Each structure stands twice: as C-alpha cells, then as structure tokens.
C-alpha cells in the first residue's frame, strides 16, 4: 500500500535512453534530489522533457542528456541557464525546441492517449524547421485551415516535487501554481515519481491545503513517493522555502570552467542527499 521509496530506488527503475519528464517551472519546485541522484548514476543518453531550469542544466553538465525537449531554459533570477548554454554551444545536446503552450498540448495528448492535438501554435515560426517531431494537419471540416499537429509527449518516466503527500501518493501543492505537474504524471504510464517536503496522514492533506481545490495529484497517478525535506533546493518550494539564491549563483558560476564544475560537483552532487541537506542548512 505504501509507495514510500528513496532517490536511489527511483534511479534504479530508470534506464539508458529513456524519455524523462521533469515537473516544476524554471528554477521553481524542481525535484532536485532525484536529479542529483541521476547525476551520480551511470545513466546516459536521456531525453529530458522540461519547462527547464537547473534540472536540465545540471544533467547536461553531468553528461546525462542526449536530447532536450524544452520551451525555455532559465534560472528565473538568472535569465539564462549557463550549463545548458554551454552544452548547446558545444553541440553536445540535441535540441528539440517547443513553445510553452505547445508543450502543454503534447503532454495533454499523451495524458489523453491521442496521437496529437491540433493548434495554430508554431505556424510561421522556425519550430517547424527545428523540431522534427511536428507535422501539419488539414482541418477535416471544410474551413481550409492547415494546423500544427502536436504529437503526444509520451514519457517513460515522470518526476515531480510537491509540498505534501500521503504515503500512497495523493499529493498537494501549497504554492501559487501547480504548473503542469499533473500532466507530466499523466503523460507517463508507469515510473511516475514524486518527492515531497513532508508525508502526512491523508486527512492532513486537505487541512494543510486549506481547500480541496489544491488536491490535484491522485495516488493513481503516482508509483513512488520520496519524502525529502529540502528536495527542491536550490530551487524554490514556496511556502516551505524560497530559492537559495546563493547556491544557485555558485551553480551558475561553476559553468565558467571545468575546474569550477568539478568543485561544485564534488561539494554539492557527489555527496549523499543527507550530506547535501546538512550542508545546505549550515550555509
């Protein structure tokens, strides 16, 4: 009945070449403890699907990413994701660009188990040139419109971070925006993992959320729960904590040289998650 598990166990269920969707938005509510565990693993050639921030950048720097499907890559308070930039400019990552809303449609199509959803988004832009997954489709209703067919973004695994859950995987967000976490979890058939700040008894979910409108992740959407306070750090997880801007700056600066990255990796990635959390609190 309980789905409680660990970062290492989550990683053990992933394989080389998988397409992995990561929830959150930019440098907000990212499942970084699992991302760090992936960075420490022997996994390779991953396709990362993300409204991207340091999840994508860190995995690129660790050499885990073959392909990036993303509408933007940003650290929010630092506009551009420096490690992703470095990977792009060295040509080490295949880039499959998306529009933000088009990304929603791709995840929604996967969640609804249809091959595509139609939209105007992409018409006239270079998405049609640089994203080989896209196609166009003629409207069957005699209006003469040629639309973009956004393919289903089917995920081999989905990983999100939420504020609270019970041990069976019912979960809630306490911040301003769920982002698209529910769609990420629905776009994968299996290997749907969440980390949470705190596991609570089921009745406490609605109490802490203050309204049933925030109970947006159901246990049938979740296969594993990692309880890890601070898991999203250095990204934000309001109202539990704000972004650790200092550590984010260190992370960004470590894109400056191989030595700087090696030092960051040694101090903040190649440590156990318990050690990471102890260190980050001691700062």
């Amino acid at each position, binding site marked *: 009945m309980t789905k409680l598990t660990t970062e290492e166990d989550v990683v053990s269920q992933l394989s080389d070449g998988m397409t992995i969707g990561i929830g959150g938005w930019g440098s907000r509510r990212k499942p970084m403890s699992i991302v760090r565990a992936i960075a420490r693993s022997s996994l390779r050639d991953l396709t990362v699907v993300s409204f991207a921030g340091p999840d994508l950048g860190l995995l690129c720097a660790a050499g885990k990413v073959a392909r990036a499907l993303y509408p933007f890559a940003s650290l929010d308070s630092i506009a551009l994701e420096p490690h992703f930039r470095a990977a792009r400019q060295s040509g080490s990552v295949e880039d499959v660009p998306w*529009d933000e809303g088009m990304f929603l449609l791709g995840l929604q199509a996967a969640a609804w188990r249809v091959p595509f959803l139609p939209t105007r988004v992409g018409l*006239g832009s270079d998405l049609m040139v640089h994203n080989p997954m896209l196609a166009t489709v003629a409207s069957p209703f005699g209006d003469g419109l040629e639309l973009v067919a956004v393919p289903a973004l089917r995920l081999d695994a989905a990983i999100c971070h939420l504020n609270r859950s019970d041990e069976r995987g019912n979960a809630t967000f306490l911040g301003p925006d769920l982002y698209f976490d529910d769609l990420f979890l629905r776009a994968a058939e299996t290997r749907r993992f969440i980390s949470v700040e705190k596991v609570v008894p089921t009745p406490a979910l609605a109490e802490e959320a203050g309204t049933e409108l925030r109970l947006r992740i159901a246990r049938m959407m979740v296969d594993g729960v990692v309880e890890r306070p601070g898991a999203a750090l250095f990204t934000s997880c309001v109202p539990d904590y704000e972004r650790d801007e200092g550590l984010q700056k260190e992370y960004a600066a470590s894109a400056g040289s191989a030595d700087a990255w090696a030092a960051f990796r040694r101090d903040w990635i190649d440590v156990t998650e318990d050690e990471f959390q102890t260190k980050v609190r001691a700062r």
Partner: protein
Amino acid sequence: MRDAGREATRAEVCVTALAECFRGDGEIVANPIGTIPMIAGRLARASFEPDLMVTDGEAALVAGDEAFAWPRGKVLEYYNPYRSMFDVVWSGRRHVIMGATQIDPYGNQNFAAIGSDYRTPKTQLIGFRGAPGNTVNHATSYWVAAHSPRVFVETVDVVTGVGWNRAAAAGPAATEFFDLRRVVTNLAVLDFGGPEHRLRLVSVHPGVTVDDVVSATGFELAMGADVTESRLPTPEELQLIRDVIDPDGLRRSEIAD
C-alpha cells in the same frame, strides 16, 4: 519626491509610448514583459484604458496600480496559473509586449539562439518561450531597450515570434488572428505600415533625430509621411509613474536618466 517638477526622463517617455500600445484594447489581459513595459501596462490601465486586466507576474490577475510591490496588499481579480494563461492566449484576449534579441523588417523576432547553425549556436538564449503561440493568436508588440543594428537585422537567425511575411506564407490559420502592431525602443516608436508591412518609423523620442534611428537600424527603414516627436507624459501620468506605479524607480535600471 525627488522627481517632482522634473521634466520627463527617457525612461518615462518610453513608458508612455508603450502604454499607448494598449490604447483601445478594452477588456483583455495586457501582458507587457520586462520592467518598463510592466510600468506601461499599469499606466495605461490607471489612465486611458481602465478595463485592461494585468498580471502580478505570478499566478494572478490583480487590481491596483502598483507594478512591483503591494504595500497595501494584493487585490486579486482572477486566479491565473500558467495553465489558465494559455486559455487566455488562445482565446485572443491578450496583448503581449515581448523583448527581442533580433528583429527583422517584417517583425520576425528571435530570442532563442544566435548563430548560423541552430545545432551549435554561437550563443544559446532562452528558447522559443511562448512567442510562436502568442504571435499567431493575439496582439503582439515589442520593446527593445537598446536600439542597434545588432538587434534590427535584415534576417534573424531563428524565427521565434512570427512576422508579417512569415505569417502570410503559413496560410490562413496563421493570419486569421495575427495582429503584430508596434515596436517601441529607447529611441523611437515604429509600426509595420511600410510597404508589404515593413517596419516604419512613426515618431522619435525627444532628443533623438531621424538619422539617429536610421543609423541604429540594420536595414532600410520605411518613413512615415510625418515622423513626429513621441509625446511626453502628462503631469498626471508622470505623477502616476513616479508616485504610484514605480515609486522605487526600477525604470531607471533599464533606461538610465
């Protein structure tokens, strides 16, 4: 009140010109992105376009004129997480003002990557963001804080936001709701009223000459029949900008006095 009685700064002229982009828009989401555009959206609503709705930069549409801080508390009009924002975008009830790292004579915009080979760009930027969807679904204008030939280029390296010629080539689904309007820069106001919807100079900001704009533009610029001087904010508008919308003067961080 360090600004009281001072004449309008360049930043304040730009705010006013950007606010003018929203004139006549009515009850839609004014979604200007960036510091000076945010102030401009507030100014338009606080003065001549009171039905506009504006975001708090997070997940709500808010009442009130403040742009960056809510000392008296936020008054929420609507819960608008990112999921809902696309309902707004695709309904067409939105006017966005975006930035541009490159923009061409037809208003094709790029903020994804610089360089001739997309697979290995010289400079990776933020990505396509929402630009493809915005530009074919609702009104779009642009803000360029540093007008230069590096921004105004004959051909952009990547088309993120769709311009007039590319929309036309993509067919009726792209043109049906296409509504590309203006470009406001630190030097001038431009629209797409030139031949074949090419960029056209409408007005220059006080202290700027037509030659300044021409030499800062990397392609041939169409000229309005009567290139005027961009209007100054009224005393009421200045007071709103300085005392209510942006009392901490964040506008100066984008365009210095």
